[in-house]
């Protein structure tokens, strides 16, 4: 018995699984929503890492046109057999986007950009490849359009590398995180604006702003150890009020709490 003999390749398995199909189309739906396209006219979109064209199917359903790029000929063959609506291109986005300036009304990418952080060959330099991708993407997009790139970052350094190269290429915008508190449903969308930018959309299922999640909040305050444990700092107003409350419970005579309680006596001249 040979291992893997006669089995479909992993990429083929990936596009056959119905669960993957469902997640893919959900993510493309969200990505197109984040693009904020005008509703009255069809747009031309670029799909980076289109694979078998699952995300493109959603774009076609919405009545837009798309052109897909992918590095894998096997996945593109699947797309050709599925007779997808959009046009396909075999290309490595790390070598640049081969389009004329200002041609697209938007760009989406589902689970593809993190692969640019891998150095598969000795000559590959992830920051350079990312910069080449983002700078040529910036050129290919029309002014005022957006690029929404869904990605699975391995760690925060990778995320930082990707966003830094995007900003260097001239994009504005940032990261939108959907369902940041869920391990499974959590999704990262890098929303990039070309030229004049709108406000960054909010992630789904977030109460706090998504920015806060990305980095630790800096405060100039010193928190005392006791404070963290739940006890108030000695001689503070809270500490006095707690002590008075405790005494009251013991049945001792305690002066009532007023606005003067725990106030400092300023020095008199």
């Amino acid at each position, binding site marked *: 018995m040979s291992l893997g003999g006669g089995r479909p390749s992993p990429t083929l398995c990936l596009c056959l699984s119905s669960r993957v199909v469902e997640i893919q189309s959900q993510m493309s739906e969200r990505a197109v929503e984040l693009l904020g396209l005008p509703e009255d006219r069809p747009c031309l979109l670029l799909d980076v890492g289109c694979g078998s064209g699952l995300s493109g199917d959603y774009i076609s359903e919405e009545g837009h*046109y798309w*052109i897909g790029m992918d*590095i894998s000929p096997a996945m*593109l*063959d699947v797309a*050709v057999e599925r007779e997808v609506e959009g*046009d*396909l*291109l*075999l*290309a*490595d986005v*790390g*070598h*640049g*986007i*081969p*389009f*004329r300036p200002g*041609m697209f009304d938007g760009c989406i990418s589902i689970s593809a950009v993190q692969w640019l952080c891998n150095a598969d*060959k000795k*000559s590959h330099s992830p920051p350079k490849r990312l910069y080449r991708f983002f700078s*040529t993407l910036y050129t290919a997009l029309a002014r005022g359009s957006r690029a929404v790139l869904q990605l699975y970052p391995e760690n925060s350094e990778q995320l930082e590398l990707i966003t830094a190269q995007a900003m260097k290429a001239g994009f504005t915008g940032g990261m939108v995180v959907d369902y940041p508190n869920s391990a499974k449903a959590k999704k990262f969308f890098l929303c990039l604006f070309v030229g004049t930018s709108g406000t960054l959309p909010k992630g789904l299922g977030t109460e706090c702003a998504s920015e806060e999640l990305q980095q630790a909040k800096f405060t100039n305050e010193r928190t005392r150890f006791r404070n963290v444990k739940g006890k108030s700092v000695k001689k503070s107003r809270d500490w006095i009020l707690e002590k008075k409350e405790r005494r009251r419970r013991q049945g001792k005579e305690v002066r009532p709490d007023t606005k003067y309680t725990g106030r400092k006596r300023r020095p008199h001249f």
Partner: protein
Amino acid sequence: MKLLTHNLLSSHVPGLRPGGGFPLRIEVREGKCEGRDPPETPPVPAPPSPLRGRGRLVEIPLLPFSLPPEPLPDYEANEEFLRRLHHVLLEVEVLEGSLQCPDSGRRFPISRGVPNMLLTEEEA
């Protein structure tokens, strides 16, 4: 590959002059033409005719019928012209052939309707 895509593509070989790499020359071995009155023979390559539409330069090297070399002054209201443009851009496809960069002469093969724009390590 639809002609709309060809109209947007430009070569990305490093070291081109600014604004270079466009328009890519199309070489057709096999083509496809959908929609109304498809010709029996695959579309014949014709010399490129620049056409300015919606602020974009449209290069149409493959035509099953003739389009005027310049857009008519009232082309947005001219339905016949728009129909023809739509047909040319979205219904004529190149299945086998190649694209050639006008500046560097680099050829990008097209197979099964998918242009191969991969660069080799030396080029990149």
